[in-house]
């Protein structure tokens, strides 16, 4: 393998991008003063994009749909924004922001999305997918049990990836640039040769998967040729490294429309090529920034075809092109490079944006200059999120990882995830109060739960019932997951992405829960006050009376925070006890995306005083307005959830008005750095940071056209605020904005 002047290591002998990075990285410890603005070419391109984005907004959120071609890596010819200005090329389809059909997840969903925009799927495609081809969605519903259907339709399990692609797999897109496709095919061929008998189910399956991967790699070579790129060989310079990496990602988003299609952690890898060219004097800083600006611009233009109902769980048309930046290497050096800064600089050069979903891997040991720059970017754009690198490195034992979807650790190229959406644990608590029956429909969900006795709710009795309910919910949840991922592998296998991951990778299944703060407060109320259930004629709870004050989650009060911690621990243990398809390791998240609104709608009144239908707090956030001791007490409560019990991530969204962060800009930057150091120093996992005035959001609701790029972080990702539904906008605004002075 040619080393192109780089320092050699294990990466020359086998596919090992991490080793290449460790051998060749140039950590950067200074400040942001070297950064450059956009080039004229970049500005012209972005102008074209802005016009297209406006058209998209004016056309009901979709600029165009191709209704004839089924998207695959190779299905479309070359597409450009404005060819003469592009230094990084490649679009998903042949036209900017045109969306493509990927019906292997489920044909009906595609047909519905197309018809919702007044179009029709080409009859031939329709014929194929209704007569001849089977999809993931068909497979799942062929085998779902009655019980699973019940838990799904009544809202105990929601957002399951059974009619859309599961996503969450991160290909190691860097491999294409470092090795070129010929070498990758060769390596996969070697794997294949080693996969010999006995030919049991799993062995046959792996052989078929590797065969598919090799096909996908060949398709990528062809895709590259359409743009005049020789992807079969490694990248020879910085521009090619960025281009090759993007092409690998592009193949993924041409083939798959998973809910989250993360990018990984490419910035410091690319920096190695950029740094080399800069040192050799073949490019300037302006060139370097131009590559990154244009790469990021392309990532911002990624689109998937979604039906309207999808908005309820994933609002704002997100794509989760999550790029993780920063963090530390196991050897103690920082992974921050100048290109880490250059990625963040795109938020100035192109303006704020929800995508790519930039995630800072925060370590106490990050260089001070980088910490401050991140803080400044948060204050100026509200577009980035933070995760605890020290915590993840230590617990997950890798320094080469990305964030899958919103908040979830994934070692790059070595591991994948099975996305599991989430279960409504607040509704599960109501099963404990209603003899195992759904509080809305009186349907028996969990047999064997005793009706509660006595005038007031008894804490121990409730806990005992709650545990029975959780046990059953965990089982049904697991069964649905096994079916979903079995079928996804079978009918919508991610061959392009998996071609860039080691053969037979380690798998985590990513379970999730919603409603944690409601459970904590409800149980706290039952424990610390007298709570009486008001029941309807069927004996189902419709409301509660609470006599007295109770400690509320979000105030750094162990009396309630311990309850939250224990519930997460308990449910995680329930899930861990059950074997998963392909021997995946169970992990759990406390994360809602925007589904906290729809979950709330489906959940009756709860003993914490929350009325029926009222939205949950997002992720692991305390309930709106109940955290009365200020922002840090609120952060400290969330920090108590043990990451070991929730390794798929614990999402917290922190919104603060600029003035509350400090009197002036300098103070604000320093104070936000201190806040992040403090929060993550307490082993907290994730934080979205919004620095915004409530008035700005209110104004944006009324005058959306004036805020085309207004970005706000919600649970685990960022959205363009004006693309949220009115209901979701109101929910965001009603949330705790820390505004004490």
């Amino acid at each position: 393998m040619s080393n192109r002047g780089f320092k050699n290591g294990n990466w020359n002998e086998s596919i090992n991008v991490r080793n290449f990075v460790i051998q060749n990285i140039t950590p950067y410890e200074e400040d942001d003063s070297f950064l450059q603005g956009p080039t004229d070419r970049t500005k012209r391109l972005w102008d074209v994009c802005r016009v297209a984005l406006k058209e998209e907004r004016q056309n009901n959120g979709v600029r165009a749909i191709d209704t004839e071609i089924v998207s695959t890596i190779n299905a479309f010819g070359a597409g450009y924004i404005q060819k003469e200005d592009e230094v990084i090329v490649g679009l998903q389809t042949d036209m900017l922001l045109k969306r493509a059909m990927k019906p292997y997840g489920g044909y009906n969903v595609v047909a519905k999305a197309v018809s919702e925009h007044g179009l029709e799927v080409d009859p031939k495609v329709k014929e194929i997918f209704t007569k001849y081809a089977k999809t993931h969605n068909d497979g799942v519903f062929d085998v779902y049990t009655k019980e699973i259907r019940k838990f799904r339709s009544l809202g105990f399990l929601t957002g399951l990836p059974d009619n859309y692609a599961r996503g969450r797999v991160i290909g190691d897109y860097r491999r294409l640039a470092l090795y070129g496709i010929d070498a990758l095919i060769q390596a996969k061929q070697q794997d294949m040769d080693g996969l010999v008998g006995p030919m049991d189910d799993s062995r046959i399956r792996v052989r078929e998967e590797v065969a598919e991967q090799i096909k996908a790699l060949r398709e990528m070579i062809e895709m590259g040729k359409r743009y005049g790129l020789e992807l079969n060989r490694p990248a020879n310079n910085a521009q090619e490294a960025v281009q090759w990496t993007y092409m690998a990602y592009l193949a993924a988003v041409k083939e798959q429309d998973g809910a989250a299609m993360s990018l990984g952690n490419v910035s410091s890898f690319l920096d190695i090529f950029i740094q080399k060219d800069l040192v050799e004097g073949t490019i300037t800083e302006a060139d370097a920034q131009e590559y990154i600006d244009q790469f990021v611009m392309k990532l911002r233009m990624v689109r998937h075809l979604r039906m309207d109902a999808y908005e309820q769980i994933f609002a704002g048309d997100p794509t989760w092109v999550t790029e993780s930046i920063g963090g530390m290497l196991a050897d103690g050096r920082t992974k921050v490079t100048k290109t880490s800064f250059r990625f963040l600089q795109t938020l100035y050069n192109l303006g704020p944006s929800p995508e790519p979903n930039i995630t800072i891997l925060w370590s106490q040991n990050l260089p001070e200059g980088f910490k401050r720059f991140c803080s400044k970017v948060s204050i100026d754009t509200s577009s980035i999120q933070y995760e605890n690198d020290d915590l993840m490195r230590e617990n997950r034992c890798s320094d080469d990882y990305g964030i899958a979807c919103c908040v979830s650790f994934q070692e790059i190229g070595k591991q994948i995830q099975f996305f599991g959406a989430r279960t409504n644990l607040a509704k599960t608590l109501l099963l404990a109060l209603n003899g195992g029956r759904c509080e809305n429909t009186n349907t028996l969900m969990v047999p064997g739960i005793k009706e509660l006795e006595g005038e007031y709710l008894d804490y121990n009795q409730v806990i005992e019932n709650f545990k029975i309910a959780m046990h059953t919910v965990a089982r049904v949840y697991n069964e649905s997951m096994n079916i979903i991922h079995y079928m996804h592998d079978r009918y919508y296998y991610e061959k392009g992405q998996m071609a860039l991951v080691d053969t037979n990778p380690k798998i985590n299944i990513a379970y999730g829960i919603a409603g944690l703060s409601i459970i904590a407060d409800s149980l706290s109320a039952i424990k610390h006050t007298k709570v009486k259930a008001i029941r309807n004629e069927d004996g189902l709870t419709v409301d509660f009376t609470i006599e007295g004050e109770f400690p509320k989650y979000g105030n750094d009060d162990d009396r309630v925070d311990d309850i939250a911690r224990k519930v997460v621990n308990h449910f995680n243990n329930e899930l861990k006890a059950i074997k998963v398809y392909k021997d995946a390791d169970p992990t759990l998240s406390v994360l809602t995306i925007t589904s906290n609104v729809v979950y709330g709608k489906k959940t009756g009144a709860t003993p914490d005083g929350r009325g029926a239908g009222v939205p949950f707090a997002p992720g692991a956030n305390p309930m709106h307005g109940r955290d009365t001791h200020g922002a840090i007490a609120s952060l400290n409560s969330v920090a108590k959830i043990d990451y070991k019990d929730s390794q798929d991530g614990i999402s917290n969204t922190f919104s603060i008005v600029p003035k509350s962060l400090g009197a002036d800009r300098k103070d604000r930057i320093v104070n936000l750095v201190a806040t992040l150091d403090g929060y993550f120093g307490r082993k907290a996992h994730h934080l979205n940071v919004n620095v915004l005035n409530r008035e700005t959001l209110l104004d944006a609701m009324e005058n959306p056209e004036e805020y085309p790029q207004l970005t706000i972080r919600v649970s685990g990702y960022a959205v363009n605020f004006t693309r949220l539904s009115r209901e979701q906008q109101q929910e965001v605004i009603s949330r705790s904005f820390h505004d004490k002075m």
Partner: protein
Amino acid sequence: MESLSVHSIESFGTHDGPGVRMIIFTQGCKFKCLYCHNPDTIPMDKGTKYELEDLVRRAINMKGYFGKLGGVTVSGGEPLIHSKGLIPLFKRLKGEGIHTNIDTNGRILNAHTKELIDNYADLVMLDIKHINNEWHKKITGGHEVTYPLRFAEHREASGKPMWIRYVLVPGWTDQPEYLHELGNHFKDYQTIEKIEIQPYHQLGVHKWESLGWKYQLSDVEENSDEQLLKAKEILSEYFKEVKVN
């Protein structure tokens, strides 16, 4: 177990002392300043009892957020009413290596106060309501300015850091001649690190109403940028740092 009468706790204070701070607002104040934006902290008979150890635990939980600058500020109400109780609290905080700060109107200077601020308060923020005695009385409900000035003298003599804070109320505290007088009074103080101008706002008016008290400055408008700049200019002649908070 020792306890403190607390109005509220703000765990993310960024305007009451350096850095990120835990602010303990104590209950009770003898002044009744016309523009008070937390009038609900004035009555002596309200508040929630917090055990000192609970306050210390909360502060320790926040230590990581304080960075190099932050710490704990006790504000009010008027914290020095509770001087005796604050001594053990500040002792414990100092023992934990936490920066301590008192935000006071400087009315009280007894043995307990002296022990507290001389030995345990890393910083004192002294609110001067007005430099002119008549105006001072008018604003505070009849209290003489000599007490805060005496307090300032004591802090100066101790040689430990002090900030002056000054609420700029249009027509009430922004008279140029008095701003000069304020500057002249303090210009030779060595311990004063800066003066903070606190812009006037009416965010606390509803609290006056809910207490059944009449708010007398209803027709006073918030400062214009120009007014703030003007005051800053004048005070800059006398203080090494002037900050609009």
